[in-house]
């Protein structure tokens, strides 16, 4: 898979920042015997960590739009939203989205070091 372009310092700083209430993303996590848990996530990094849970749920399109609208990371947003068209199961798409985000996070950390 083609690597992401190096982010600007400005973009990197945005992606690493904590978010306020209005910019949060609401995702869902399933628990045995407890159903869905609504989880508000307040940073790019927090979403990545959240997606490691094997029963986490967020719409791919919603995730992509959140990245575009909140951080302005068009490249990452488009790469994630394209996953919806792939012939993959939902969980596989989510893992790919997570890994793309993880890669971006790594770039941001290096950029701000």
């Amino acid at each position, binding site marked *: 898979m083609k690597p992401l372009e190096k982010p600007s310092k400005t973009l990197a700083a945005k992606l690493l920042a904590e978010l306020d*209430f209005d910019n949060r993303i609401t995702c869902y996590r399933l628990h045995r015997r407890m159903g*869905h848990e609504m989880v508000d996530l307040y940073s790019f990094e927090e979403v990545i960590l959240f997606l490691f*849970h094997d*029963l986490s749920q967020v719409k791919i399109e919603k995730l992509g739009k959140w990245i575009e609208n909140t951080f302005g990371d068009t490249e990452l947003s488009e790469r994630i939203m394209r996953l919806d068209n792939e012939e993959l199961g939902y969980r596989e798409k989510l893992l790919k989205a997570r890994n793309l985000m993880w890669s971006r996070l790594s770039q941001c950390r290096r950029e701000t070091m």
Partner: protein
Amino acid sequence: MNGYTGKILRINLTDKKASTIETEKYMKWIGGHGIGSAIFFDLVRDKTIDGFNPRNVVTIMTSPLTGTMTPGGASRTEIQGIGVQTYPLGWFTRSNIGGRFGPMLKYAGWDGLVIEGKAGHPVWIDIRNQNVRFRDAEGLWGLDTWESQKKIWKLVQDNPISGSWSEIGEGEACGRTTQRPAVMAIGPAGENLGRIAAIIHDAGNASGQGGFGGIWGAKNLKAISVIGTGGVEVNDPFELLEARAWAKKNYMFNIEDPSKIDAEHSLLGDPTVRSAMSMAASPLPIVFWHRRKESRPQACIGCPAGCRARNDTGLGNESACAETIIYAYPDMKKQSRLWVRIACSIIETAFDENAASFFALSYGESSDIAYAATDLCQKLGINAYEVWRGIPYLRALHKKGVLGPGRQIDCTLPFERFGEFAFFEELLTQMAYRKGIGADLAEGLVRASEKWGRLEDDLTSGLLPCPYWGMPDHYDPRYQVEWGYGSILGDRDINEHDFNLLYWMPTIASLKGEDPRVSAEEVSQIFSRKMIPFENDQKMLDYSDENIYSEHFVKLVAWHRYYTRFWKQSALYCDFLFPDFLNLQTKDKQGMLGKGEQRFLNAVTGKSMDFRDGIDLGRKIWNLDNAIWTLQGRHRDMVHFAPYVYKRSLEPSAYMPGMEDGKWKYINVEGRYLDKKKFDEWKTLYYEFEGWDPQTGWPTRKTLEFLDLKEVADELEEKGRVGKESS
């Protein structure tokens, strides 16, 4: 008296007197909830009193199965009384607790306890076989629930060495035992009259819902300790063991190769995502922190489920389910940040999927903080569910800028330390001792939100997910509709997982891109055939938008109320194993439901109940409860969900069986919200079905007399709250 001891201990805290109620007087209710409701009805003349009122009566009831070898039926105890947690009114409510207390009570010679009045100063009750003492709790008041229990063990037992013989006084087996007392205790939260205070037994058994911890605090009751040296008389011990062997052979996991059986018979198709909802599953602690390698399942007496764990660290022992998640996520988030930073500093290429996967193995390690947080909640005696749902709500308000030092909702919680133990400790300490913002939170999330002037907005937006009677959301009523309906028609979050499989199986399958193990049509057939006396109506299991407001769905909800009121809350079969609707261990996929329940009960009692008898008795108990709520002030106009259930669409995917274009399939109900008008119309159908006045929801004399509840009808009439008969 097979299964029974014949005596219920009546404890008058005001007069410090103990007396006896003959169980025979209430034996027609069998046990547990049925007996509790009947005794409450008889003893509490004014049902409009507040739960903190000394005249509130708390019943603690076992069943004939308690203390026997019935699998999944030997250890539960039902606690009832006017609660203080629900909003706007504290309904007559129930809680249920596992562990050793119920069996030990039977071994001491008691079928249950009735607690009334209020002691003049803090006391604890010391029950040793038939000897009952009111003891001064001065040295206990102020201690947490674990410290209290340990101290009581030393006070009761002359030999503090665990497992050694001790003499407890007169009784069977010469009054000697190697067991330690079974103690239920309240902590600081209960002492400070928290509406969300729990009663804790051993390390992790809790009576969480209803606020009974605060009710005991109001009564100056710190703890009840019981130790017994007797046994439980069983009518046909051979048949009981035969029944257990039959259940094990035909419905439970095969111990020869449990992992293989789990893979084959896991209804969720993935042994790592087992729900332990199936009788066929091997023991699996239901814990939500990442389980330590050095841990083992722990079970109540006679139960094969093993839903709790004991850990090598001694942390988190015996806690399960929601108790284990209260701080697991913030802890994981904080811990895993370290790994993410390390990973990022090592990953050299811009995108390396393998490296990311490698570090994924390191993700999600729960530190001791998650376990210690759970233990703190148990020690302070706080309802874990309120804490779990409360933490994200508080965090959201902080992020909104309305909660924090000097803000509109002033508080000193150290949000900069969110995810650390310090934050959690400060929050729970404030709740337990009503300090700072804890004074509001001790009243429950909904009352706190009301005080902050946010309730209407937050229940409309869903920021505060409390859909029914001010209780936190469990299974969303927008997909698990029968759960929502049962909760709002009753007194609390029902916490009855009987139909969750219908959601879990297809929803997990869709996440994995697989087909569910059993089709929608087949599952609806299997379920409906077991739902006597409505077994011919397969559409009961149709969760489509049209059908959830239908008469078919009325029957589903009614059956669920009757089954749980009797078989689970009165006979006291555990929610973890019962009902066994669908079981892949069997050739026809039919579970033990409708065969096992009565077999064990009859083996113990010598009765000849059939499954339908239990359903009918459940209907009677449900009607008695509705009569009590009616006397408390209920009217159908109050019976509505929080606004967000009617206004906001369900966001995540959730699949339920239903019919579309005449065919059964699993329907994705994402986007659904309940229609308030249609729900109101459905309530009319429901009330008419039950024989209640559709204008008010009150039971009618005709229905109550049909159910042999004439005296209940008389009291309703006396209070001007009997339902009008339909003309």
